[in-house]
């Protein structure tokens, strides 16, 4: 039995390695690129071999034994980490996390459980979202080794890899993980863990924006008839942004000021996700791939920015200041018929899932529980908006243990528990999460919610993944903020273009061109 499990494991491992090598070799195979790829593969092999050599044999052996017996990556990680602890290699790990609810899981659930299972303490360093990336870069340059585990947004991965901030994980995965666990991660998120043919992170929080609507209003025959009469269309979840505006305007005109048709986060911070999705759905491209001149001021850019500003008019007054919490408050208080797309936790908050937990005290009571349904972003393509991976710091003095924690936290069993935590902002990213009967039973529409999330992940536009990704996002935020602040749309787009071009110059035109060429190869860089 054990031998057959072992053989099965080895077969899967072989398939996994073979698929990765195939992926690496899949592109053009002229002589030069063949030599280049061979050299890269050799370098990867040497790197992997050197890491493998540095892995602790007793820990690897303990993990392999567990994998052969149960195939459970979480148990394997625990067994190996215990060995490291027993041998005195590690007592404490530090992890950087977004401050607030995102860190609560680590402080209240994962950290204490990990300590209980392995004896290794987990110290959480909390930082506001904007501060995480600069902190990681500065810690790396200072070489402090003060952080073992990083939480990297996929868009930052290019910077983190090119600067050597994160450790390649393939050698660890080969030794410690059940390869089937990788296949369980949704392909969109699984691809985001790769850069240049290597895996650098394990997904931790699947973030795609989805839309929310009030079924009691949408399914009310009075509104259905009135909307049909006004627009000659059926009232239902919007398929395009134009439809979204029609519905939003209809409800605002019919029900405001008690209920507005909809709202989106219009606080310029993070507005890039909304612009970025619609811009690409309308056919916009960030750059001309030949010249690397920014092309935000294309027709698609003008149309997107113009519509976004126009849409504000049928949202509640002052929406320009609204962020995640303000929209949530209005939504839960029943003041909105729709939410023009946001992050997944709204679904749980709407249904008051876990409302009795201490961490949820700040969330206003929901008046719309049982009346909420979901839709994929208008345009048919969702937006992957941030999300997090667990990555091992290249400067960590306890990389093996850091990896083991990441594997444990990312494993199907533990990650399911973590995405089910009501107070965590962690959202499904595994096929097994979407299909989990436990999750589907949490509230009546939970199945619909998980299906919508999965459909969104299936057709998902990625954040711009290339060096200086963070700065590109800030440039888009500033561009949108300027337009919302009264600057003519064309001028704001020109300003955004200028900021993009400056960033290309700063990063080196050739290097940025190469990075962009890699980005546009990704599924989800642009609508297919």
């Amino acid at each position, binding site marked *: 039995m054990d031998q057959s499990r072992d053989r099965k494991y080895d077969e899967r491992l072989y398939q996994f390695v073979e698929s990765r090598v195939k992926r690496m070799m899949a592109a053009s195979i002229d002589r030069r690129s063949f030599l280049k790829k061979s050299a890269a593969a050799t370098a990867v092999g040497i790197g992997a071999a050197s890491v493998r050599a540095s892995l602790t044999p007793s820990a690897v052996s303990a993990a392999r034994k567990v994998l052969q017996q149960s195939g459970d990556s979480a148990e394997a990680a625990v067994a190996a980490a215990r060995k490291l602890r027993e041998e005195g290699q590690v007592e404490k790990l530090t992890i950087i996390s977004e401050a607030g609810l995102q860190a609560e899981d680590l402080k209240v659930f994962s950290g204490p459980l990990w300590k209980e299972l392995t004896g290794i303490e987990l110290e959480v360093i909390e930082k506001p979202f904007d501060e995480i990336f600069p902190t990681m870069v500065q810690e790396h340059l200072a070489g402090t080794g003060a952080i073992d585990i990083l939480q990297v947004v996929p868009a930052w991965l290019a910077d983190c890899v090119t600067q050597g901030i994160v450790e390649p994980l393939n050698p660890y995965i080969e030794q410690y993980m059940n390869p089937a666990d990788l296949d369980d991660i949704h392909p969109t998120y699984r691809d985001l863990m790769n850069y240049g043919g290597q895996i650098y992170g394990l997904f931790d929080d699947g973030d795609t924006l989805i839309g929310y609507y009030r079924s009691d209003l949408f399914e009310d025959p009075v509104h259905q008839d009135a909307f049909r009469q006004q627009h000659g269309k059926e009232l239902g979840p919007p398929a395009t942004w134009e439809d979204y505006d029609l519905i939003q305007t209809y409800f605002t005109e019919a029900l405001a000021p008690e209920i507005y048709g909809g709202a989106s986060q219009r606080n310029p911070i993070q507005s890039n996700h909304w612009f970025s999705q619609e811009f690409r759905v309308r056919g916009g491209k960030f750059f001309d791939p030949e010249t690397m001149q920014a092309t935000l001021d294309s027709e698609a850019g003008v149309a997107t920015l113009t519509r976004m500003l126009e849409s504000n008019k049928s949202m509640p*007054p002052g929406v320009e200041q609204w962020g995640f919490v303000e929209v949530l408050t209005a939504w839960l208080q029943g003041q909105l018929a729709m939410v023009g797309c946001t992050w997944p936790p709204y679904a749980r908050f709407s249904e008051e899932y876990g409302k009795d937990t201490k961490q949820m005290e700040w969330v206003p009571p929901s008046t719309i529980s049982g009346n909420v349904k979901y839709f994929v972003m208008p345009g048919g393509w969702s937006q992957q908006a941030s999300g997090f991976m667990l990555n091992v710091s290249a400067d960590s003095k306890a990389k093996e243990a850091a990896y083991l924690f990441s594997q444990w936290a990312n494993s199907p069993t533990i990650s399911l528990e973590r995405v089910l935590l009501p107070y965590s902002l962690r959202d499904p990213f595994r096929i097994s999460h979407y299909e989990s009967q436990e999750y589907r039973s949490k509230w009546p529409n939970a199945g619909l919610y998980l299906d919508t999330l999965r459909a969104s992940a299936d057709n998902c536009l990625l954040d711009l993944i290339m060096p*200086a990704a963070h700065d590109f996002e800030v440039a888009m935020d500033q561009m949108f903020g300027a337009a919302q*602040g009264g600057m003519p749309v064309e001028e704001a787009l020109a300003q955004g273009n200028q900021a993009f071009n400056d960033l290309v110059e*700063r*990063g080196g035109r050739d290097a940025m061109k190469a990075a962009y060429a890699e980005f546009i190869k990704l599924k989800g860089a642009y609508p297919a």
Partner: protein
Amino acid sequence: MSVTSGSVTAASETHRVGRIQSFAGRRRFEGWLMVAPAIVVFLALGIFPLIYSLVISFQRRDLMRANTNEWVGFANYSKALRDDRVWNALQNTIGLTVFGIAIEFVLGLGLALILVDELRGKRFIIPILMLPVMMVPVIVALIWRMLWDNQYGAINQILSWIAGHDVNIVWLLTDKNRSLVAILVTQVWQWMPFMFLIMLAGLAGISPDLYEAAALDGASWWHTFRDITLPGLANVIAVAILFRAMDAFKIFDLIFMMTKGQPGTSTETVSWYIYDRGRQALEMGYAAALSFLFLIFVTIVATIYISRFLRGHEA
């Protein structure tokens, strides 16, 4: 005997001088020893970063790119002078400083004039007035951000009462001028009490005899204010304005919490922009150059101010 006595006296004197010198030397050594830690800390935390940042202001030093320690001369400085965001940030900083201090001064002096005389409840009013100064600026910004909220904030509510109809002004993030007004008012609320306290102390230092003499001569309130109070407060006013200006020029917390430089980049101040370039964009060389340009600017302004007002008063 006298020779012997003389040589003994001389020897004893030499010995005594030697002992004194040795004692003085030891004391000097001990003195240096005692201040050495402070000097080391000062050099390490004060002088070294200053010199280091001066050095990197002449380098490209971009943390997002490898090997960017090359020397670029004054390129960062010339880039700063051509950067529209720098000029906008400087304009905002000067505006907030000048208008802020002017309002703080007028209100602070007015309150001090009221409270300098015996007043019922003065003992309680002054500590309450001082509360904003003691608050952490980030907390002040958070509170005021809520007050400025168009939907739930007290400011629109008060304006609605005054206007007699619903007022729904979006103060932050939609309009540069409205955002700056909101920041200005918040800043004045926090720092006016500082100005008030200094003015109150200054007023208490003016001799009551002068006021009595003026009263005997039949001077009006305005004449007394113009010819006794203001000249008596001149030095205090000059110092208070200098202190506040140096602090107000560095305004950062309110911008960080209230607008983050938005809408667009229109409400950025110099300190915010330096933070943005250094901490967010990680362009250390450029941020260092901006810091030194700002330092030079503030030094020039402060020098002119001191020579014009403070030394003028001393003379």
